[in-house]
């Protein structure tokens, strides 16, 4: 294992994970302790805080379908925080992810109901794409305005949030209202455009077209992984000129196996049998998105340009990079991910598979905390998103079992963010010494000047 270290492609994540766990864990602990003190002071009951926290844990993990509901809640967090992190790394504070989330949901709800005739292999990608493009445009415009006219993205995306809320409200109540429903909502999307739950996968795969779609996705992913592995020095020497063949062949092989075997296998044995379990394939998309963002930002030329523009726009300009294009690109990726999050909520989570009028999310602001908590590291974001998703999901049972309002969660999250952003405060609290060489950190964000 240790001799493999140099070439192990996962070494960067592991060491990052190790480094990340120290201070954030301490910060979280401190935040929970202060939260307990607040509960104690406001309720005057010594047992209130333990009851509340136990309720929180039970609600997040142990109640019926608790864990899968926590995962469901963390999926939008992952995508939104990834979007924010792309912005932060490019020197942009896309505070408007909430609005992009709404627009993504709106576009997906529209694209999902235009027809019922299309098969899932076309309709589902179409709906996902519609949501992502909607979000990308909603974020790209402020990016363009920033470069062309200097309108700061914090203000303009914030304003775009409110426009998005009103627009969504208008479209739901007026243009796209489902006239057959008593509640105010858009028509349900076509079953073909629904995002599959894990429980429904075996049944979905019985349709050969669906199996073909899954096979295509798997083939593509296999080819991408093989392509990445083929660039390692030892493999490169072995493969030589057969690199292309290896990539294409393995992809084709994986696709074929998936197409033939998956429907049979899932039909024979499948762990997700609970039909009411809402855990859906968006989870896979969220994890893939995290890997994709990491790949894009750390391993590709466009990602390098984005990071350079973020770290030092002047240097980037002298190096001949197109700042405007990069800023718009960063905003579009950021908004696209946020739009995808909204899309997934509509296609995979909402009970009616539609966009209801009372579609409040509140995911956006939490996601700012998540991406800052994770220091914009995609794999840290996965962990922090699960934490936030679990807290969000557990909050109801906490409120029910202890009478402590679930807003205490926001308080704890804000404190955790504060402590993570300022390790000096935590060190000062616990009388710890600053570790040498860790003090100087590049700022995550910049003021109006950028």
């Amino acid at each position, binding site marked *: 294992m240790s001799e493999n270290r140099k070439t192990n492609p996962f070494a960067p994540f592991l060491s990052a994970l190790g480094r990340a766990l120290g201070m954030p864990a301490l910060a979280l602990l401190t935040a929970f302790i202060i939260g307990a003190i607040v509960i104690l002071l406001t309720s005057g009951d010594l047992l209130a805080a333990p009851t509340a926290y136990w309720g929180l844990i039970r609600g997040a993990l142990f109640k019926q379908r608790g864990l899968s509901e926590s995962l469901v809640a963390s999926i939008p967090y992952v995508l939104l925080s990834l979007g924010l992190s792309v912005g932060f790394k490019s020197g942009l504070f896309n505070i408007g992810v909430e609005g992009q989330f709404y627009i993504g949901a709106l576009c997906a709800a529209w694209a999902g109901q235009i027809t019922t005739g299309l098969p899932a292999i076309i309709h589902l990608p179409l709906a996902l794409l519609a949501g992502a493009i909607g979000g990308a445009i909603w974020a790209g415009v402020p990016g363009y305005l920033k470069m*062309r006219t200097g309108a700061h993205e914090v203000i303009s995306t914030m304003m775009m949030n409110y426009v998005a809320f009103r627009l969504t409200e208008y479209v739901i109540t007026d243009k796209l209202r489902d006239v057959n429903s008593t509640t105010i909502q858009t028509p349900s999307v076509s079953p073909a455009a629904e995002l599959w739950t894990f429980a429904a996968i075996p049944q979905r795969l019985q349709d050969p077209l669906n199996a073909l779609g899954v096979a295509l996705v798997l083939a593509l992913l296999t080819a991408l992984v093989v392509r990445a592995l083929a660039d390692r020095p030892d493999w490169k020497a072995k493969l030589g000129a057969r690199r292309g063949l290896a990539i294409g062949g393995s992809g084709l092989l994986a696709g074929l196996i998936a197409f033939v075997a998956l429907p049979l296998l899932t039909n024979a044995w499948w762990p997700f049998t609970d039909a009411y379990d809402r855990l859906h394939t968006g989870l896979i998309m969220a994890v893939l998105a995290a890997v994709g963002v990491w790949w894009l930002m750390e391993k590709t030329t466009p990602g390098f340009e984005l990071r350079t523009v973020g770290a030092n726009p002047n240097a980037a300009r002298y190096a001949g990079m197109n700042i405007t294009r990069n800023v718009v690109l960063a905003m579009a990726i950021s908004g696209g991910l946020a739009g995808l999050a909204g899309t997934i909520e509509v296609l995979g989570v909402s009970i009616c598979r539609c966009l209801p009028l009372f579609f409040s999310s509140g995911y956006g602001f939490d996601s700012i905390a998540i991406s800052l908590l994770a220091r914009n590291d995609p794999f840290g974001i996965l962990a922090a998103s699960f934490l936030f998703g679990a807290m969000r999901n557990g909050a109801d049972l906490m409120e029910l079992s202890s009478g402590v309002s679930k*807003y205490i969660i*926001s308080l704890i999250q804000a404190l955790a963010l504060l402590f993570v952003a300022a390790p000096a405060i935590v060190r000062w609290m616990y009388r710890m010494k600053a570790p040498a060489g860790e003090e100087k950190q590049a700022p995550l964000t910049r003021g109006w000047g950028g």
Partner: protein
Amino acid sequence: MDTSIRKDRLLSQKWLRTLINLGGVLLALVIAWELLNLVIGRQCDGKCITDTLSQMLRVATPIAFAAFCGVVCERAGVVDIGIEGKMLTAAMVAYAVNLFSYQWLQSMMEASAAGTLSRWLALLVGILAALLLALLHAVSSIRFKIDQIISGTVINILALGVTGYFYRQFLAENLPAGPGTFPKIVIPFLADIPVLGPILFRQQPLTYIMILLAFLLHYVLFYTPWGLRTRAVGEHPRAADTLGIDVLKMRYTNVLIGGLIAGLGGVWFTLEAVDVFNPMMTNGLGFIGLAAMIFGKWMPFGALIGALIFGLGNSLTTTVSIYRPDLPSQIPQMLPYLLTIAVLTGVVGRAAPPAADGQAYEKQ
């Protein structure tokens, strides 16, 4: 000789700028007027106009306070996007204090005096609550040198949590009757001036305070040593430090004063606008205040004009919904936000913030 010419040029430039600004405001008013007529078809008579303009001033009040808070902080080099959170907290605290102190004071004096006293008490405690959050922002961004945007975000999330928590625990149900909001103060004689009177001199106290504050801030920032120091600290803290100005102390002072001003904007929501509190009531006005500040190029009067433009957008929305109830209400409701974006992109162009805005200062 040379200096007098330069002074002359400076003077003429200043005049020119004021003229251009005034012209811009007039143009905006005319455009808004024509747009309004386009929608509601010349139904707006004299009373409707003065009502709309008076409403504009009213709605502009919290935005202007938020913008002033931004001006005071950022002139000293501290970015503050936590204004929204401070306003929300001040709004909640003022509401609670107004309600409960009224219950307590009623037993001691007659109802109207108790109402007045509890409202002013609520105002005071409300802005002190905002001051507390400003202190957090100051300590974390000046002492601990956290990224100021992050610190502001922390304050926003924290405020959301704290106000929501207290609202759900104590303020959601079984509430006693409160003393209500500040009544309008009609200024004698001035209020009888046609057109201007009803707009400017029949307002609630915080609106008057806001207008006076604009003059005060302008004077203080540009005509007193404190203002000069503030600007020096915001533009070039190292140079200011060399000249013996205590950079950190100036920044602490300014952030705390900014907190008080943001608190005034916050108490507006529950002491002037409506007599209830709900957890999302600031509705982005703190951020809009920042837009007004950028629009006003970090000048108090500029910020005021920015706030008034946004207020106008808001009051026009109300007017439109009165005359055209058939229009879906969401479309005019988008107007103020679109207006803010348009203002940021079209009118201002590239605004230059204070040079050291957002940078922590490390003493050497």
